[in-house]
């Protein structure tokens, strides 16, 4: 713990202390000047700081609102029915209210990440001190999001506090605008959404920088270890300690205790959600061995608890089911809460002895405990697990129904349909019941992978049938086989990697980055992720994974018994598969894009967000996919990508985010930029067509991915590659040539070589283009020119002669 004196302090006492007075107005500018950093125009932007940029992108990509509710219930004048864009009692109309609702969801996500960041930062500063250097591996640009947004170049943990202060101040400003009688224009709520999204990436970055620096996590390593994943990899014969959540800080004490007391072989430590990911990053840098197994995502939480296998459950924060305590109690599993965000009404035992806590929980006197003291937690969790395993074994805790019971239960179904109506995916439960009544459980088994494990079917059933347990029992063989491998999160992409690959990305010869992020609310089961990643990797895209998606991807194997993590290398190169890490590691994906602009293109990064975003918008063919996005964090992450011009596709459930940003390819005026060389206007391809949209199925997704990696900066080789994938994927998954392929053709060299003649014929015949058949050259037709030296920009002030 730091021990610097405070209050009115004598200068003599403070030798060699570095004092940062970050709050003083103009301080960042002065510091930057002294350090020789060229500071951009918007360090620490307020709500209006990047509004002009937002208006630019919002004029191309219009908000599309699909309300989840037609009413507003914020204040006591209401509820107000806003159907048909009517105004409520405060004068707000449906459009503005929907934008406000989206803003609320976005800042909720931002707060989740940054509050996590603040918590772990407090904790690590307590433990390692404010002067602990930030270490992210071989990079100079160690905090790209932070630096681009705030202008601060953090070097120590202490430097991150000012960054968090900024994020918190801005989140508070945004939350204030949710209040009745604040912003009235949808467009300005939209700008605030983008602001909130941007802040999210700063908050995430701070979180991951802090933990990477202190917890021995891999630092831009390309050969991080492979970690066991899946419900099937848990050895239920051992005492099982299950941890759930997103914030690894307390869990590291448990891991240390297990390690220091040589209990590795005696206890099975498994994790759900991002805490699991970060457990597998803990102390594995430079070849360390993972000390825990990953069970899976939120979708496995209820299934794992209901299996009865865990002997103790420890939860921290975020994406933890609200009914963990209730569910665990039914199976005599004590629950320990370890974070102020989730306390479940349990007694605060932080100041009690481990022995007392263990006694009260193992005797069943208390169903669980709140332990905010991590030393105590470190001891209680594993010791209690070993004790509970015996007790629960002796008690003969029975979790799932037997097959006979399954048949009997099925027969009780009255086919009312309530379960199917309430099921988020409207899964065919009734027919599984019918088959089950005839002892055919295959239809229950079929539901297992499609089911997101939410348990609403149980809640809905008027006959109180334990639907989820029935599915799980019928699927126990499948579940037993759920054993895969996931690559431990590697953290950032390093500066040297950017230098190597940047050019290919900007010119398009690496066809694009597909970032598969987010949660487990999949429309068609987890395997879709595998299919998407495999297809795109085969096609030489860089596939970047994080969080829940990174986990689920590791659950499947090809015919050779290999997971994709084994099949593909893990460098930042075309055709490589990368796992950056947990939810907060998503900041490294945007960080990578910022790095390309800063390192490869040598754009100034500090406080220069607009220019960086403009660069990325026009030059980096990256598409985010949050196929199972369920959470407010996912929409926050997506909105942060959007402000940088990175398009994001969510699955069909994502329509319930109630707002998308979609352009109109038929509106030619919208698809123009300036050429920074002379400020002239130039038409650009209508790609990305959207900043945030949904796709219905992965078959639809594939061509969308390829098409929306197209960028104005593509050279002919790059455009040809991208176009080839677009046409091939469209053929393969939709069975047809895309209607708009020709709109991306600037010159004959943009056309795939093998098909060039055939395509030229189509251009002539269907689109009236003039072709010089002798030279196989296009004479007229394209609206765009191919000019690699053009410098596309949306920002007039960045053009030569401006400013």
């Amino acid at each position, binding site marked *: 713990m730091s021990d610097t004196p405070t209050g009115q302090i004598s200068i003599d006492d403070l030798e060699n202390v570095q004092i940062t007075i970050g709050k003083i107005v103009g301080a960042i500018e002065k510091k930057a000047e002294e350090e020789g950093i060229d500071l951009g125009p918007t360090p620490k932007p307020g709500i209006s700081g990047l509004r002009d940029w937002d208006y630019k992108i919002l004029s191309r990509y219009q908000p599309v*609102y699909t309300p989840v509710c037609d009413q507003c219930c914020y204040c006591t004048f209401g509820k107000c029915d806003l*159907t*048909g864009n009517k105004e409520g009692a405060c004068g707000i109309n449906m459009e503005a209210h929907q934008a406000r609702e989206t803003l609320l969801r976005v800042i909720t996500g931002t707060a989740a990440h940054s509050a996590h960041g603040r918590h772990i930062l407090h904790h690590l500063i307590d433990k390692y001190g404010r002067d602990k250097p930030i270490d992210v591996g071989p990079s100079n640009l160690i905090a790209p999001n932070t630096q681009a947004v705030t202008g601060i170049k953090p070097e120590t943990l202490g430097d991150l506090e000012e960054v968090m202060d900024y994020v918190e101040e801005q989140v508070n400003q945004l939350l204030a605008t949710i209040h009745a009688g604040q912003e009235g224009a949808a467009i300005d709520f939209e700008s605030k959404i983008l602001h909130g999204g941007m802040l999210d990436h700063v908050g995430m970055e701070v979180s991951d920088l802090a933990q990477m620096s202190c917890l021995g996590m891999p630092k831009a390593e390309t050969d991080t270890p492979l970690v066991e994943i899946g419900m099937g990899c848990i050895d239920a014969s051992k005492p099982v300690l299950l941890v759930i959540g997103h914030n690894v800080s307390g869990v590291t004490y448990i891991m240390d205790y297990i390690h220091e007391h040589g209990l590795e072989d005696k206890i099975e430590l498994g994790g759900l959600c991002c805490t699991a990911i970060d457990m597998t990053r803990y102390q594995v840098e430079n070849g360390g061995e993972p000390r825990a197994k990953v069970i899976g995502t939120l979708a496995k939480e209820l299934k794992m608890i209901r299996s009865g296998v865990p002997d103790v459950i420890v939860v921290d924060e975020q994406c933890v089911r609200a009914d963990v305590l209730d569910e665990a109690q039914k199976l005599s599993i004590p629950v320990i809460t370890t974070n102020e965000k989730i306390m479940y009404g349990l007694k605060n035992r932080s100041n009690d002895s481990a022995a007392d806590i263990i006694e009260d929980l193992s005797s069943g006197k208390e169903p669980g405990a709140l332990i905010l003291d991590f030393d105590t937690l470190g001891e209680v969790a594993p010791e209690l697990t070993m004790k509970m395993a015996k007790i629960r074994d002796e008690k003969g805790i029975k979790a799932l129904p037997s097959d006979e019971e399954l048949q009997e239960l099925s027969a009780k179904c009255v086919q009312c349909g309530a379960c199917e*109506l*309430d099921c988020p995916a*409207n899964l065919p439960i009734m027919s599984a019941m019918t088959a089950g009544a005839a002892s055919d459980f295959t239809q229950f088994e079929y539901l297992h992978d499609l089911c997101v494990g939410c348990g609403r079917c149980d809640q809905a059933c008027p006959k109180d049938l334990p639907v989820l347990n029935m599915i799980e029992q019928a699927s126990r063989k499948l579940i037993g086989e759920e054993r895969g491998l996931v690559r431990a999160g590697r953290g950032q992409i390093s500066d040297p990697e950017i230098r190597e690959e940047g050019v290919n990305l900007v010119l398009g010869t690496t066809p694009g980055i597909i970032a598969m992020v987010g949660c487990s609310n999949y429309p068609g089961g987890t395997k879709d992720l595998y299919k998407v990643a495999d297809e795109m990797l085969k096609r030489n895209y860089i596939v970047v994974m994080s969080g829940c998606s990174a986990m689920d991807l590791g659950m499947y194997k090809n015919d050779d018994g290999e997971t994709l993590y084994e099949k593909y290398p893990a460098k930042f190169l075309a055709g490589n598969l990368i796992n950056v890490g947990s939810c907060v590691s998503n900041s490294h994906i945007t960080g990578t894009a910022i790095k390309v602009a800063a390192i490869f293109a040598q754009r100034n990064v500090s406080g220069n967000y607009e220019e960086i975003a403009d660069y990325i918008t026009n030059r980096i063919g990256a598409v985010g996919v949050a196929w199972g996005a369920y959470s407010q964090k996912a929409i926050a992450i997506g909105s942060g990508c959007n402000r940088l011009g990175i398009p994001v596709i969510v699955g069909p459930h994502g*329509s319930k985010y109630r707002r998308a940003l979609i352009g109109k390819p038929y509106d030619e005026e919208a698809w123009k930029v300036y050429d920074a060389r002379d400020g002239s206007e130039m038409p650009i391809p209508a790609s990305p067509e959207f900043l945030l949209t949904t796709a*219905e199925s992965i078959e639809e997704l594939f061509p969308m991915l390829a098409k929306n990696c197209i960028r104005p900066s593509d050279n002919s080789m790059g455009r040809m590659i991208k176009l080839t994938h677009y046409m091939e994927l469209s053929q393969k*998954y939709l069975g*047809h040539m895309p209607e708009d392929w020709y709109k991306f053709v600037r010159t004959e060299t943009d056309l795939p070589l093998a098909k060039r003649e055939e395509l030229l014929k189509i251009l002539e015949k269907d689109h009236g283009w003039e072709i010089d058949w002798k030279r196989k050259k296009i004479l007229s037709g394209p609206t765009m020119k191919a000019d690699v030296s053009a410098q596309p920009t949306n920002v007039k002030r960045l053009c030569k002669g401006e400013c």
Partner: protein
Amino acid sequence: MVETTKNTQIYTTWGRKTAKPVKPAVAGKMVSKAKRPLLVIGSEIVGDEKLTDRIVAIAKKGVPVAATGHSITAFNGKDIGAKYINVHSLAHFLGDEKWGGLDGKGPYDTIVFLGHKKYYLDQVLSGLKNFTDLKTLTLERHFMQNATLSFGNIKPEVQIEALDEFIENL
């Protein structure tokens, strides 16, 4: 006459404006009277021959078809002129008077939906309900409360019968 208006149970509400349950014959007549109807098909029909046949029949009666998701794969070789479009984009464009439509012939007035994921279509319809004046009709097996007109919750076999009756009245 097939009864499609009885079970309008919902699992959640959007607000007070709710679809009117409709019978197939009435729906058919409404579409046949529309100036510019559009039939929007979702991916759930893929692999369902019975539904696909009915869609082809509707298309053959002159209703243009937008194929969303990967539903277009069901129409390969069926020569109905179905065009792929993303349904979220489509809903955005439908609200734009300047959009020329899938065929360049101008905006649509009556939008008919079939073969969609319920929860996804709920949202698409919510957008159309709140921000456009379009008439929307759903021929799904679920009661779609955000449509202007909808079938109730019906069984698959009833839906097929209802579609046949709908087609007769086109």
